[in-house]
Each structure stands twice: as structure tokens, then as C-alpha cells.
């Protein structure tokens, strides 16, 4: 039964993808959603079943067939279902299912309706396979596959130049990360001769320290790409060009978590390399505050959320890096739900105002779209760490992990980032829903979204509120910690006992969050003129943040333009100039020799005779030269 479930979970969406993709355009058209949603719904149910089985203590490790067998290089297609998988499955299937439902309303009337659902199905398939796979190569394969879906969905509205660019950019930046990932996998293979999780982790102790650091850093490079960590974060904000359900599903709740999943999955490897762990924590923390600082000043509603996602992913890596493995996964789950919710809400807002995404044109929408507003607020509170909601527990466990692990500097930075998070989230809420409508035209047309969109919002709001209570209590020894214990058993630090200090920390982070919300209220409700003044006050910083620290421009100047120039140079100068020049030149050379010899063929008989005499003489000279 478990095997069937494991098989069906990915295959149903795949089948739906194939059928919808092939026949959607001609036959399904506006009815494409039925099959797709049904497939994902069944997958969701089966996932719940699997999770329950795992909860009961069942595990599954199953080699389906030998995929690649070339000499010593043998990789199977196989499934591994354990606690970590179950946790991922929970997020992926639930948010996936909700996003499918949501898309029915959101994408209604779009020319590529069938295509959208087909792609979503393909994504679900790939994502399921990614988390269900039992070896590194499968992880890599479906890692790329989800990247492909991301690419297809970002550039879904391909006629827009910006969407097309964003898709390509996402794929390419991910490829840069995968470059490392791939090399890491090869290094694992060359070192251990196997790629299956069990084989690698069992033998992880045999790897030399330098090699293991190299492996971990290379793998982490892949994670940086997929999970949008600095400096490979640049694709995620642009990815917002895709339809909002995509942003919610792929670029907030599931795919971008793959990097976190991968590091968590490889914990036995990372655990052995202090350097790698530190790098993970460092990159995570830096990204957390870096992205948050950009999020502070963005005006596009989805961009704010995108930078927020980058920042929150940074938290997760920070947690993993300091050894708070379960905390990281906890945050992943919580974030998956509330960020999925937030994106869907933003989609609902955008839907309400006919596609406008600039918050400066919104305002006062709270009365018009009540359900959206309230679910949005729930999500925002959750991410801001409002006591009791999901984000509070998860973020706190991350920060506590950092503090208790002795990384007080990461903790401090994380705390500042948390403050920023609260600030920009409520900046978003206030600018969008409060105050006066800034664009009356948009405002007057605004309307609540259809039920297919609001129900997922409500459904997702529930875990955003409750999941912390369910999974996270008591702190550091909550359900999720115990649940994941078998996975992280080997890499666990010394036991830590929840004490007074922790309560203090908890209070501090709650206070920071509330302070952020308050400051946002001051800035955007109480004294709306302040932001501009403040912006002017820290002119350079403000400008830098607004321009995302010119990272894109730097990449263009440092990599993209030089690469193109190099390509052009190689083509024009080396290919056409030198190589072809040599080829054509040698042809000309032989013609030239002919031209030199030509005068001898003067047509004059006596010249011919003379050249014969010269030839005779020359032969004698050759003889003499050779004998003497």
C-alpha cells in the first residue's frame, strides 16, 4: 500500500500533465482544471496517508529500477520515505493542492489556461520526486526539473519581455548553483563510489576532512541557487513576473525550500565539516538581513514578498548552519504555509485591482476585499513573529538555536532582520489596505475574489495560525523536534534544556516584532510624510536598497557582458580571424607558389630549354652538395 501510494503521488500529476499537455489545447480548454486538480487532490490525500504511516513509525526504502549503470557508476530510481520526507510532503502537497484550487479562479480566461495547469502538474510531479527520491542524483535530476517548471511558469506570459527575461535568468542562475551541486555529486561518487543516501551517509565518516568540506560547499552552492541565497538570490525577485499562484507555490512554499531540504538531508555530511556549517550559517544570516533591507523599500507588492522569502530562507540556512536542524525544518514548514498564504493573498489583491502590483497605487482596500485583508493580516502577523502564531514559534526556535549554539552574532543579526521583517510586512499591509485609496479608478473597480480563491486563503490561514502550536510546543522539544529526531539523531548537539534565558529571548523576539509593526504604523498611518524624510536622511543607503545594491548591474558588468564580448571576440578573431585565416591563407599560399612559378611557363621554347639546362646543373649541384 505504501509503495502504491509513493508511486501514485508523483505519477498522478505526471499523467495529468501528459494528458493535459497533449490534449488540453484542443479538447479540454476551459475545463483543464478538473483533471489537474483532481490528480493533485488524490496526491494530497495519499500524502496525508503517507505522513500518517510515517507518524506511526513506518519507513519505506524502495529501489524501483536501475536507472543508470555505467561501469561502477550505478544509480537507481528509488524512493525513500522517512520523517524528513513526510515533513516536506506535508508542505508540498497541501500548498500545492491549495494553489491548484486557487488557480482555477485566478487564471480564468487566460489564453494558456490548459498550459498553466499542465505546467503546475509537471511541477508537482518533479517536486514530489525531488523529496521522495533516495539518492543524490535523483535529487539533482528533479532539482533541475523543478527549475525547468519554474522557468516555464515564470515566462508563462512569454509575450512580455520582462517575463521572458526573468525565466531565462532564473534558469541560468540556478544553473550556476547546479554547477556546484553537480560537481559535489561527482566528488561524492568519486570518493565513495555510490550516490544513494544510505550508502553515502553510512560511509560519511570515511571521507577526509578536506574532501568533505569541498563536498558540502559544492552541494551548498546548489542550495544557494535554488533557495536564492546571496549572491545567487537575484533570480527570485524577478521570478515574480510569473502568475501569482506560481510565486506562491514554487517561489515561496516549495521549490525554493529544496535547498534547505537538501542541506537538511545531507546533515550527516555537513555535520562533519565545521567550515561548511559556518559558511551555511554565514550565508544564511547575511542573506536574511540583506534581503530584508531591500524588502524595506520595494513598492511592488510581490517584490516585497519575494525579498521576504529570500530573507526567510536565509533564516532557515542560518538554523541549519548553527546545527539547529529541526528548527530549520520547522521554519520551513511554517514559512511554507504563511508565505504561500501571503502570496495567494497578494494575488487576490492583484486580482482585485485588475493586475496592478504597485502598492503606491493602492490603499484603503481593506473594506473592499475583507477576506483577503484578514487572511493577509494573519499571514503578516505570522511572519512578523506575533506571539502565538506560526512564525513566532519557528523563528524563535531558529534564533534560540543560534544563540544557544554560541553564535550570538548570528542571533543578533537575525534579530535585526526580524525587526525589518515586521516593519516591511506591515508597511505592505498599511500601504495596501489602509489609508486613502491613491488610485480611485482602481479602487472603485476593486472586488473580492471568487470563492475558489478565497477558500484556499482561509484554508492556509489555519495552519499559519496553528501549526506553531501544534508542532512547536514546547519550544525546542516540540512535536516536530521529536518527529524529526530519527533523521537528525546522528548530528544532534548536546541536549539543551529550556530555561529562563530562553523565555527572555522569546520575549525579546516577540517585542522586536511588535516594535517593527509599530514603527510601520508610525511611518505609514500616523505620519505618512516620514518615509520620504527618512529616505532622504540615509540617501545612499536608501538608494542602494532601492536598487537592490546594484547586484544585477554588477553581474552584467562583471560576467554577462564580458562573456558575450568574449564570445564575440573568439568568434570574430579566433574562428574567423586566426583559424579560418590560416586555412584560407594556406590556400592562398599555394596559389602564391603557383604565381611565383608561373613566369617559368613563359611559352618560349628556348626558355624551356634553358630551364632544362638549369635543371641539369641543379641535379649535379644536388649531387655535389650531398656527397661533399
Amino acid at each position, binding site marked *: 500500500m505504501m509503495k502504491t501510494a509513493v508511486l501514485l503521488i508523483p505519477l498522478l500529476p505526471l499523467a495529468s500533465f501528459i494528458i493535459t499537455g497533449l490534449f488540453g489545447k484542443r479538447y479540454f480548454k476551459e475545463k483543464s482544471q478538473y483533471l489537474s486538480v483532481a490528480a493533485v487532490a488524490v496526491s494530497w490525500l495519499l500524502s496525508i496517508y503517507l505522513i500518517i504511516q510515517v507518524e506511526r513509525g513506518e519507513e519505506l526504502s524502495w529501489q524501483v529500477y536501475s536507472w*543508470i549503470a555505467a*561501469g561502477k557508476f550505478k544509480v537507481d530510481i528509488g524512493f525513500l520515505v522517512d520523517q524528513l520526507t513526510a515533513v516536506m510532503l506535508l508542505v508540498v502537497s497541501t500548498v500545492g493542492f491549495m494553489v491548484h484550487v486557487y488557480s482555477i479562479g485566478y487564471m480564468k480566461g487566460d489564453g494558456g489556461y490548459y498550459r498553466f495547469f499542465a505546467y503546475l502538474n509537471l511541477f508537482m510531479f518533479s517536486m514530489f520526486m525531488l523529496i521522495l527520491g533516495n539518492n543524490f542524483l535523483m535529487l539533482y*535530476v528533479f532539482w*533541475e*526539473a523543478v527549475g525547468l517548471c519554474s522557468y516555464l511558469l515564470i515566462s508563462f506570459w*512569454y509575450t512580455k519581455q520582462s517575463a521572458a527575461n526573468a525565466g531565462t535568468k532564473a534558469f*541560468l542562475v540556478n*544553473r550556476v548553483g547546479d*554547477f556546484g551541486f553537480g560537481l559535489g555529486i561527482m566528488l561524492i561518487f568519486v570518493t565513495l563510489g555510490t550516490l544513494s543516501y544510505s550508502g553515502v551517509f553510512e560511509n560519511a565518516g570515511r571521507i577526509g576532512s578536506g574532501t568533505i568540506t569541498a563536498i558540502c560547499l559544492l552541494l551548498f552552492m546548489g542550495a544557494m541557487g535554488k533557495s536564492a541565497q546571496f549572491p545567487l538570490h537575484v533570480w527570485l525577485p524577478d521570478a515574480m513576473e510569473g502568475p501569482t499562484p506560481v510565486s506562491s507555490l514554487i517561489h515561496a512554499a516549495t521549490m525554493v525550500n529544496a535547498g534547505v531540504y537538501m542541506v537538511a538531508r545531507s546533515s550527516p555530511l555537513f555535520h562533519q565539516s565545521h567550515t561548511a556549517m559556518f559558511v551555511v550559517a554565514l550565508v544564511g544570516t547575511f542573506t536574511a538581513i540583506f534581503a530584508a533591507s531591500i524588502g524595506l523599500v520595494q513598492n511592488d507588492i510581490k517584490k516585497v514578498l519575494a525579498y521576504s522569502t529570500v530573507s526567510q530562507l536565509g533564516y532557515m540556512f542560518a538554523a541549519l548552519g548553527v546545527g539547529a536542524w529541526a528548527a530549520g525544518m520547522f521554519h520551513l514548514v511554517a514559512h511554507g504555509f504563511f508565505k504561500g498564504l501571503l502570496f495567494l493573498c497578494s494575488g487576490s489583491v492583484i486580482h482585485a485591482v485588475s493586475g496592478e502590483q504597485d502598492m503606491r497605487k493602492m490603499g484603503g482596500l481593506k473594506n473592499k476585499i475583507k477576506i483577503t485583508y484578514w487572511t493577509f493580516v494573519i499571514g503578516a502577523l505570522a511572519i512578523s513573529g506575533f506571539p502565538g502564531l506560526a512564525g513566532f514559534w519557528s523563528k524563535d526556535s531558529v534564533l534560540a538555536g543560534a544563540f544557544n549554539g554560541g553564535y550570538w552574532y548570528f542571533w543578533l543579526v537575525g534579530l535585526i532582520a526580524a525587526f525589518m521583517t515586521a516593519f516591511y510586512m506591515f508597511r505592505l499591509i498599511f500601504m495596501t489596505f489602509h489609508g486613502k485609496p491613491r488610485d480611485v479608478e482602481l479602487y472603485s473597480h476593486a472586488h473580492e475574489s471568487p470563492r475558489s480563491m478565497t477558500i484556499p486563503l482561509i484554508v492556509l490561514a489555519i495552519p499559519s495560525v496553528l501549526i506553531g502550536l501544534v508542532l512547536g510546543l514546547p519550544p525546542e522539544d516540540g512535536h516536530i523536534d521529536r518527529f524529526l529526531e530519527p533523521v537528525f539523531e546522528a548530528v544532534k548537539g548536546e541536549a539543551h534544556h529550556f530555561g529562563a534565558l530562553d523565555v527572555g529571548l522569546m520575549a525579546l523576539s516577540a517585542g522586536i516584532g511588535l516594535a517593527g509593526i509599530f514603527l510601520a504604523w508610525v511611518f505609514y498611518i500616523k505620519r505618512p510624510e516620514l518615509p520620504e524624510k527618512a529616505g532622504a536622511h540615509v540617501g545612499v543607503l536608501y538608494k542602494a536598497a532601492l536598487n537592490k545594491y546594484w547586484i544585477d548591474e554588477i553581474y552584467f558588468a562583471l560576467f554577462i557582458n564580458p562573456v558575450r564580448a568574449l564570445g564575440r571576440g573568439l568568434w570574430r578573431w579566433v*574562428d574567423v580571424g586566426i583559424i579560418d585565416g590560416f586555412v584560407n591563407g594556406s590556400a592562398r599560399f599555394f596559389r602564391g607558389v603557383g604565381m611565383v612559378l608561373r613566369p617559368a611557363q613563359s611559352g618560349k621554347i628556348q626558355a624551356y630549354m634553358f630551364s632544362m639546362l638549369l635543371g641539369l646543373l641543379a641535379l649535379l649541384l644536388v649531387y655535389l652538395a650531398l656527397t661533399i
Partner: protein
Amino acid sequence: MYEFQEQIGFPILTVITFLPALGGLAVLFARGKPNVYKGITLAVTGVNFLLSLVLIQYFDRYTATMQFVEKVPWISSLGISYHMAVDGISVLLIMLTTLLSLIIVPASWNYIKDRELQFFAAFLFLETGLIGVFCARDLFMFYVFWEVMLIPMYFIIGVWGGPRRIYAAIKFFLFTFAGSLLMLIAIVAIAYLARSNPFATPVFDMDLLENATFSYQVQVLAFLAFFIAFAVKVPMWPLHTWLPDAHVEAPTAGSVILAGVMLKVGGYGMLRLCIPLFPDAVVAIAPYILVLSIIAIVYGALVSLVQKDLKKLVAYSSVSHMGFVTAGIFALNIVGIEGGIMVMFSHGLLTGALFLMVGFLYERLHTREISEMGGLAGPFPVMAAFFSFFALASLGLPGLSGFVGEFLSLVGLFTYSKPMAAVASIGIILAAAYLLWMYQRVMFTGLRDQKWYKVPDYSLREIVSLAPLGILAVWAGVYPNTFLQLIQPPAARLTEKMAPYMAESGSVVERIFASLGGLF
């Protein structure tokens, strides 16, 4: 002297090799209506494809010995015999050849206007040459087929090509011929050196030559001569410049065969001759070849990135992809060799398909300039779907054929030298860059001209030409073992052959790279 292996009851290799040539003669002499000679061509290539499937069916995939042996004396006073036999590598490539030959018939059904009859005849002769190379087990025969395939291709480019076809055809011929002549001398040299005494007949039989030993100096020189001939075909940097010209000017079907099969002949030759005959030299020279391969990978990709002509872009991408072939092969381990062969196979499918699609696009738009395209996914959704499929497969998307080969060949290279594999991996990033950027510029963004909506999307004929390639690409990606099984025994045999020499390898460059490898 006579030898015939009763594996299937009739000399299938001879039939599969010469059937197309007979078909070509029939086409030339029948001189029927267009549908008659096209029908003959289709029938002959179809039967040949079925024969290749039969061949695979009866092929024993668990042994590395040569199978379906046919051996008859030919010019006995010169030690030349008509000797055909295949192993897994040959069988795989024969299948690829017959498949692509079959596909180009419907694909160019309406493409050629002028001297159509000769066009189809030329293709049939070409097929004979190509299959013959894969079957030949006698060096002399190998060379004969090697050259025979040159001529029809020369005509195909020169007669039915684009505006600069003459330059391209001559360049193609001279590049290849230059390599061939060196090979010819090397063939002669080793055939005479392998004799038991100065008055014995020379040895052209590969079976015997593989057991002969040559002095190190002879090995190096002969290896280089062979290698240059094959490197031109592959083509390896810096011997590649004929390729873009030939591809741009060749008619669609010509490009398909050129990229799909002819380039593979180079890689095949390296596997069939360079490594088994000169193992000692291979081990010593491999590092240099790997450096060239890596240059090819990165260089081809970089140049591809800035191409303005769609066909040229695909052509340069071939340079890059074929770099993975040589990189895998000369990593000199079984994973790399199998990877190299898989890249050959998959590149045959994918680049063949890409060229077909460029051709189909050209038939609609009458241009190949990328800058004149854009937004074509709107009017041509089916085309866009196929295009994206093959572009993605070509950039090595896992689950499709491109990935398996490239990854294996990189693993092989990684085993050999880590820094080299790292540099080669850059090629994968760049592959994504040039293909996606191309796809974006062609299919995405705004449509230039609304009139394209009046042009029909892919017809059934075109879909039928592409679909088999797509199916095989998925097959080779999802269950590559079907193909890996075929090439495993021969690849294992090759590595065994080299094993004794690997230990004592010690060229300067290799030592440098080995020491660099320590950094990782």
C-alpha cells in the same frame, strides 16, 4: 580466410550497408515521377531501419566480442579482406544512422525543388558510407567507407546548399580530406609494421592489429595521424571551422545527417581505432586531448552565445557538445567512455531534431536570422513546444537523453581530473545560456509580424519526423540502460586494454593537473 557467423542466417551487415546504395542506383536509373523515387527512398530507408532493429534484437549484448562476422578475402595479395562485424557501439550508431536517414525523407519531402532525384540518391549513397564505417572490421575497408561518405555530402552541400555553398562544400571536403590523407599514411604504416616478416603481406585486419604491438614512437605518430582525421570530423577545436559553414549552407537534411551521424564517425573512430591500437600513446596524449576538449566545450558555447544565425548557433553548440564526447572518451575510464558514447547518441537525436526544426522554421519564415524572429510561440504553439523540448534536452535537462551522457562523461572526466571537470562543467551553464536565450529571442516576447498567424503550424508530416527523436530522447533519459547495456561490454574491453598502461602514465601535463587536483 572465409568466415561467416551464423547468428541470423543471412549476411545482415552486408545487406544493411549496401541496400541503400542499391536503392540509390535504383533511384538514379528508374528516373520515375517524384512520388516513385521518393517512395523508393522511403521504402529503402524504412527497411533499413527495421533491419537495424532486427540487428539489435539478435545482438548478444553481454559480450564484447565482435558479432555477425562476415569475412571474405578481397585483395589477398595486399592482405585486404572484406571483413564486417559489429559490437555494441556500432550497433547503437547504426540504429541512429538508419533512424535519421529514415526521418529525413519525409522531412525533405517538399524541401528540394531542383534535381530532387539526385538529392535522394545522394542520401542513399551517404547512408551506405556511414553504415559501412560502423561495420568495417578491416582498416582498408574502413578508410574506403570513410571517404565514400564524403562525396555525397560534398554534393549535398555544394549543389543544394545556400548562397555560400561552394565555399562551404570545398572547405568541408578539404578539411576532412586533409585528415583522411594523414590517416591513410598511418594506416599503411601500421599495416606494414604489423607484419611478421618483411616479405609477408601487410595486416589490415583490425582483429589482428589489435593484438600487434608497436613501438612507442610509432604509436604516438600513428595515433596523432588517426586522431587528427577523427578530430576534424568530430570536430575538435581548433579544427572545427568547417562545421559552421557547412551547416549553415547545407540543406536541412544535410545538416541533420552531418550533425547527427557524421560527427559521430569521428568519435567512433577514436573508440574503434585510436584506443585499441595505440593504448600506450593514448595514455600519454590523453591529457592534451582533454585540454582541447575542454576548450571546445567552453569555446563552442561562448561562440554559440553570440551567433545571429539560428543554424550557426546550433552548429557551434555541436562543437561544444562534441567536446563532451572526446572529454568522456579520453578520460579513459569506463564511465567516461560510456558517457561519451551516450553523448554521441543523444547529440545525434537532439541536434538532428534541432536542425530539422530550424529547417521547418526556415520553410515558413524564409530567414534564419534570430533578430528577425520573436514571439513565434503565438502563431506556432506546436513548433514552440517541440523547440523547447529539444532545446531543453540539448542543454542537458535531466530525464532527457542529453543529461545522461553529459553527466556520465563529466563523472568520467572528474575521475580523471577534478579541475578539468570543473572547467568543463562551465559548458553546461553556458549551454543553458545560449539555448534559452535563443529560445527566448525566437519564441518569446512580442511577435514581429502578424502575418505569421496565416502560416500553418507543424503539419502531421513534420510532427511525424520529429516525434521518434523525441520519444528516443525521453527513453534514453528515463531508461538509458537500454543503450548503456549495449555499450558496456565494449567500453569495458577498451579500459581493460589500457589498464596496463595507465599505471606507468606520466606526461608532464598530466602531472601538473594531478597536482592541481590535490587542491580540491
